[in-house]
């Protein structure tokens, strides 16, 4: 009811992981459906095409409602930012809503609204995405204006100054006002010694303050073009018609070769790290640990599917190993969980957390977490847990087909991270093929302390004082 967010949305780590976990999970149902109807084709039955200028297009038909989701994603995110310009990818995402050669600043959103459309955009480390959700007969107009801002953006100094102020407020809201976010940001930089995943998507405050109009235009010119983008349209549409419209509106955009990428690789990680953040605003301490982990595209990628199963059985729900051990049996924590996504252009992270019950020390909790992990490394995970986790992951996909958005997002994310539609369709089978031995091997590969950061969120010392407590309210007539 309350807490509605408006404005351009930033894909935060938690959201990204959840979204991607769901995306991965969506494929699962394909297997279930296939089992019921032998010979039936895939899960999303996406059709693909490529325009002469390099733009890749995907169409997913879903006739649930006479609507169309129109998405344009660029393979440009926080990891592509030049040194010293952190936050420019996200800033540019905001600035895409300013003027073009034919539209005044703000007119883009007016047009979307005038067509009964809902829209937003988001920036992640690996990509930036823009979308509109409209009645299906509005699709051509959305394509027209989206194609326009791909290369015709016009930015005034005033646009930049005003929107820079907005992103600073966004940072204050998402990071500076939340101790857990402050910790997360510091811990992530410690996890990735070299790779761009260690930088905050919003950017470091001191660099955000100095981002200029030229910085934005440089990033725009370098990365925004058809050869570096994927168009995904999902809904009550016809593939041939979407292709025809794409040719009409996106086709004329000049060809652009995607720029070469030089991602900084991670060096061997040799030293375990601890990041401790104390803040007077913390009343509820937390423990988390992140391990450097392979993604689909990095060293160790052979563990990627097994790691998804491991994350599921270790801490995805209240029946999971960590929750049952720490929260139910030992009563040391009020919550515990784990998360992992393989859908990255580069390396990934395997994440665990636990919230200590009042009166339980952080040391005690950490010992208990490590004891649980040691057990898994020594004895392996229970086979029935592996089978249950696999089945839960596979079953999530039938539900995903019910929403226009989920399949589209799964496929777009895959294409942004060097995967294919076929990979997305093969996901249930590959999850199904994971064995308990593979899960144990993945655990041994990832759960190594030298490749980890332990992050503790603690109240300000000394304990007992309440310096941030709210003072009595004062009423003033204005």
């Amino acid at each position, binding site marked *: 009811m309350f807490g509605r967010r408006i404005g351009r949305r930033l894909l935060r780590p938690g959201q990204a992981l959840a979204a991607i976990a769901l995306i991965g999970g969506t494929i699962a149902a394909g297997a279930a459906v296939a089992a019921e109807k032998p010979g039936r084709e895939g899960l999303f039955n996406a059709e693909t095409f490529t325009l002469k200028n390099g733009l890749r297009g995907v169409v997913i038909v879903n006739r649930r*409602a006479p*609507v169309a989701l129109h998405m344009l994603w660029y393979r440009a995110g926080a990891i592509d930012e030049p040194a010293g310009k952190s936050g420019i990818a996200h800033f540019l995402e905001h600035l895409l809503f300013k003027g073009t050669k034919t539209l005044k600043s703000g007119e883009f959103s007016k047009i979307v609204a005038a067509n009964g459309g809902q829209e937003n955009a988001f920036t992640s480390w690996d990509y930036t995405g823009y979308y509109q959700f409209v009645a299906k007969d509005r699709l051509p107009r959305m394509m027209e204006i989206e194609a326009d801002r791909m290369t015709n953006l016009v930015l005034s100094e005033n646009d930049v100054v005003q929107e820079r102020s907005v992103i600073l*407020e966004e940072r204050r809201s998402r990071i500076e006002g939340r101790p857990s976010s402050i910790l997360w940001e510091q811990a992530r930089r410690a996890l990735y010694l070299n790779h761009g995943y260690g930088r905050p998507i919003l950017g470091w405050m001191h660099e955000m303050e100095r981002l200029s109009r030229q910085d934005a235009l440089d990033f725009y010119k370098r990365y925004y073009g058809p050869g570096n983008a994927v168009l995904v349209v999902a809904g009550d549409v016809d593939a041939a018609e979407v292709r025809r419209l794409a040719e009409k509106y996106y086709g004329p955009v000049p060809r652009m070769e995607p720029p070469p990428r030089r991602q900084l690789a991670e060096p061997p990680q040799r030293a375990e790290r601890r990041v401790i953040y104390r803040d007077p605003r913390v009343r509820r301490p937390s423990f988390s640990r992140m391990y450097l982990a392979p993604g689909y595209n990095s060293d160790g990628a052979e563990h990627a599917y097994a790691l998804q199963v491991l994350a599921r059985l270790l801490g995805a729900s209240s029946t999971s190993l960590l929750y049952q051990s720490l929260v139910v049996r030992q009563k040391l924590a009020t919550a515990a969980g784990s998360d992992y996504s393989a859908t990255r252009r580069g390396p990934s992270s395997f994440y665990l957390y636990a*919230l200590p019950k009042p009166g339980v020390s952080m040391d005690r909790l950490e010992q208990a977490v490590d004891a649980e992990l040691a057990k898994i490394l020594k004895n392996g995970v229970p086979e029935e847990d592996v089978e249950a986790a696999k089945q839960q992951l596979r079953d999530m996909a039938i539900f995903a087909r019910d929403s226009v958005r989920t399949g589209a997002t799964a496929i777009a994310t895959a294409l942004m991270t060097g995967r294919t539609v076929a990979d997305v369709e093969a996901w249930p089978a590959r999850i199904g093929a994971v064995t308990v031995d593979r899960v144990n091997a993945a655990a041994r590969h990832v759960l190594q302390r030298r490749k980890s950061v332990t992050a503790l969120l603690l109240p300000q010392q000394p304990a007992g004082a309440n310096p941030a407590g709210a003072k009595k309210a004062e009423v*003033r007539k204005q």
Partner: protein
Amino acid sequence: MTLLQRIAGPAAAFAVAALALFAASAASAAVEVREVVSRSGVAAWLVEDHSNPVLSVSFGFRAGGSRDPAGKEGLAELTSVLLDEGAGNMTALAFQKKLEKLSIRLEFEVGRDQFRGTLRTLSRNRDTAFETIGLALTEPRFDADAVERMRASLLSSYLRKTRQPRYLARRAFWSSAYPGHPYGRPVSGTEKSLGAIDRADLRRFVADNFTRDNLFIGVVGDVTPAQLAVLLDKAFGSLPAKGKPQPVPASAPKLPGGIVVERFDTPQSVAVFGQPGLPRRHPDYYAAYILNHIMGGGGFTSRLYREIREKRGLAYSVYSYLWPLRRSALMLGAVATQNARVAESVGIVRAEWARMAREGPSAEELAAAKTYLTGSYPLRFSSSSRIADMLVGLQFEGLGRDYFARRNGTIEKVSLADVRRVARSLLKPDQLTFFVVGKPAGL
């Protein structure tokens, strides 16, 4: 339908867009809502859809946090998180494992006036899924260890919230607007109130409130009316027919205007503001709804967004919304700005409120709002669970099974004179009260 590429004049643009949108918005009228009644009289609204072998169920009891006894705030919420922590002869783990094995998702959520549940299941497991609802609602175990575990979990959330400026601002608003009234009390409870709840309280809450006369149900997906009638009895048939009526008294919010500041050491202040609103069934509600859309509900095109974010970069998030409760009504909003400049944001909200009260919206603003609100309506029908939730919402408000077909016509009928009249009568700049949490300079 032909689309004009070049449009002369804003009014023409909106007129054409409105006409062109009629085709799509008519689609929501095509969603057929049937009533299904079980043998024992349990009624549900059904939208059949056999395109996917899934079922989405949404249901709600007219009983939320406002029914928590004084001193035991958080009771409804604690009940809600315990309903899947063991039922019948299955303890928590067994119950949860059973659901997971069958990919049945059953969740509960509590608001001030409503206790809501949602179920999602594959068609092939729907019998078990509905039986599970029945078990959870009629035989929750409330085992001592589960109760302590969930109490600790809610307490943990509470501790975290008490250091979040947005939560503090909302708490200040509600407790100030409804002193001594259930709406003024926190739905999530406090440290003290959560500690005061015992198992007898939980059982009493269920016995008093989970009754068939208090229940609304919406079902969307792969089930026929005949099948559903049987399933409804599995889930809800053994609930008591009648409950103990515990009406929450009607109350106008106490919002005398001015600014209340709660000092809290954080770099960005959050300001929550509000004044009295309109009940859902008020004849002017749709005019008010459109008015709010123009003021601060319209995402990137609202006045507050334009003045505060677009023009001055003072906020990332600023918005307003109507909130019709069962026994009261509010018009609320929020804005978050750095401490040094939040006074400016507050001033602009004030000024825009007064300007709208005086002048109302322009013809173009009204046309744009109506175009958007009617044109975007079909988007709400893009997933089963959303439709199921809407079906329950309609029943709570007494809005009728034909609402989907009527709604856009009602929006279209609102005239400029209507909206301007409602702007004058509804918007009360002097009563708009601000609750600011942070270290606001100059306030």
